[in-house]
């Protein structure tokens, strides 16, 4: 059973999401908070698999919570999906740098939301063309095919990662990227996850779920 914790201050939307998740097979909502303080208090006890969190909350920014979770020394760590209104890219990217695994746009069909939660629980990282574009600008491409790091520089993109991001930025979805680069959708997801890890302030080990 996949456990989810929701942080969302809009009661109407929160009720709708909770209903949708609970109606899905294999997913159970273990909690809901409408403010950061409540989430901080409940999360250690709930230890959910996935944290679905809004960013703009009455007592602060969801990014703070994400960063705290990323920093703490607990032996558990949720997969984090940012739940946001038309993907305010700069905030989302900030959240990803702080440790989020991806984001989902509010207003999407319930089925898509459930699929996104499942995918993120499996260690995949949802991505959008805008984020791919940002990552392409942010990370230089490694000159050698293998090099993750070049001498004297920060993290670099491998050739495959670069190719994946480029296609995503051009509007191709994961399956199409896999077809074009002759790799599985799973491999595409791995590449994206590894790119995320490169920009995160304290990279975590690549999610165990992906290895299973």
């Amino acid at each position, binding site marked *: 059973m996949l456990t989810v914790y929701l942080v969302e201050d809009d009661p109407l939307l929160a009720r709708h999401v909770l209903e949708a998740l609970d109606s899905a097979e294999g997913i159970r909502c273990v909690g809901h908070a409408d403010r950061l303080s409540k989430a901080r208090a409940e999360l250690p006890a709930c230890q959910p698999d996935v944290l679905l969190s809004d960013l703009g909350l009455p007592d602060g920014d969801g990014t703070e919570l994400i960063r705290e979770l990323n920093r703490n020394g607990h032996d558990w760590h949720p997969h984090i999906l940012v739940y946001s209104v038309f993907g305010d890219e700069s905030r989302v990217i900030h959240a990803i740098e702080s440790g989020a695994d991806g984001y989902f746009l509010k*207003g999407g*069909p319930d*089925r898509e939301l459930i699929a996104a939660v499942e995918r993120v629980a499996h260690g995949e990282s949802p991505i959008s063309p805008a984020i791919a*574009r940002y990552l392409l600008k942010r990370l230089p491409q490694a000159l050698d095919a293998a090099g993750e790091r070049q001498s004297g520089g920060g993290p670099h993109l491998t050739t495959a990662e670069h190719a994946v991001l480029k296609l995503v930025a*051009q*509007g191709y979805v994961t399956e*199409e990227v896999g077809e074009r680069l002759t790799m599985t959708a799973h491999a595409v997801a791995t590449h994206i996850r590894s790119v995320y890890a490169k920009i995160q302030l304290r990279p975590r080990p690549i999610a165990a779920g992906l290895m299973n």
Partner: protein
Amino acid sequence: MHLSGPPWRWLWGLVLLLACTLAWPAPIQFERAELIEPGAPARTVALPDAWERSAPQRRGVAAYRIELPAQALQGSQPAFFAQRIGNAFRVRFNGHLLMDTGVGRQPLPNVAQYPQILALPPALVRPEANELLIEVQGEPRREAGLSTVWVGDRMALDPLHDHALNLRVRGPWLLASAGVTMGIFALLVAWRTRQALYGWFALGNLLWAWRITAMSVRDPGGWALALQFLYELSHSLLVAALLMFMLAVVQRDTPRARKVMLLFVAVEVSLTVGNALLNWPLLRTANLLLALLFVGGAAVHLARIAWQSRSSTAAVLCLAGMVGAAIGVRDWVTLRLLFDYDAITWTRYFILALMAVMAWRLVEDYARSLLAQQRQTRELQAALQAREQELQQAYEARRALDRRQAAAAERDRLLRDMHDGLGGRLVSALALVHLPDQKIAEPATLQDLRLTLDDCLTELRITLDSLETEQRSLGESLAEMRFRLEPSLRAAGIRLVWNVEDDALDTPLSPGATLQVLRIVREACTNVIKHAQASVVWLSLQRNGGDIGLTVLDNGMLQRSTPGRRAPMPVPSGKRGLASMRRRAEALSGRIEIGPHPEGWSVALRFPVDGTAAAG
């Protein structure tokens, strides 16, 4: 008579001292001779003997006999030296002819400009009663005569001869070449600058150069008298040219000055012509005196100008004029009153002073124009800077205005979009909500409501995207668009096949134009979801030269398996949607073809990249 003046005496003193030290007997200068003329008794005359004074009308030969004392011939190389003998002469020593420069030849040559030295062969020297006979042939008006005569050792006479040669021959040639150079130089400057003063200076210099050497012609042939006439005539022109130059330098070369100068030249020319006709040396003396007075008058005039306008240039010119006049007085007294046939004119060397003035003037001119140019350059630079600053300010003001106008246009566009797009859709959603309850409950109505609200979000999103300062390529914007549409398409069971060319994706477009394209795509996709009953929709984007082609094609027709028929699009979103797509295509300066296709329904947009800058 000696070469006059104390300096010369000192020089001679030194030469003599040197001669004594070297044990050469001192040469003897003869200041008297016995003149023997045909048809007249022999008589003693003083040397130098200028015929212009003693016999202006004499035409022919006169012999000067000099008895030489024994001590004059003591040296091992006895010789004879004279400053001037003219026009032609013969020398006989003890009856033997030693030299003949062309006596008796017609037309008569003229060697008077050249100092003469001649060895007296020791073999011809007698123990006593040695006799030197100099036969001189001259013509009226050609400055014939005989200078004092020196006899002594060659070694003692050579320095005298050399010195005379320097002053009478070499010096003048040097001056003449300098004068010609300066004259040509001034002529070129006059030609290029169109300044009269350089022209006058050029004329003066060239005349001067000619005058210095004109009389050095040994054998002028038939031109001898003409040459002499022109020589005398040119004097007034020379004086006039140089005075005009001086006046031009101080900018007083007025028409009145020219008239006075012309009058002067006219008087001088008439005197010269009078002398040529009448052979009255007095006329030439008066001629030169008049010139002298004229130069003196000019010097006084310049002094007055210098005083009045505190002009250093005028002062220098005045000084030059005074010096010229002083030298002229010396020459006039020596040559025209005393008729010293030994003497050398000093006036010819005065040109050096005028050249110095001219050089000074040129340097002054050059320095002044250089400084003026520098000042002008500085002023120009300052003006340029000021102008640049003005331009910069104007540019800034213009930019601010442009920004304000652009902002206003952007606000207008946003308002229009909000009103037509978002507002319209929200009203549609509200209309759906206001349907009777049983109608709302129908799945089709709910689906419509969901799609309409979804549309609102997409509309809001692309409007916000169009406000971003960072310019996106068409591909980036389309990719974002797909990201928004994909969930709705999937929810409707439609697979979107993304078929875009890299070339077309990288096309930069203005935000307004991008917005139009995105709205057409959104409208096409919404129509597919609402009406096509399709399972696949192909979106293709190509770039063809300067054109972008975009096609949205669905397979709704195949799905329904009823070719040629299509469900009519319900109003309002159907017809209004098509009309708005056409309007947007027009705004892109492109064309759009919307209609059935063998597979389904096709929306094909084609627009030029260049024509989209103004769109939106």
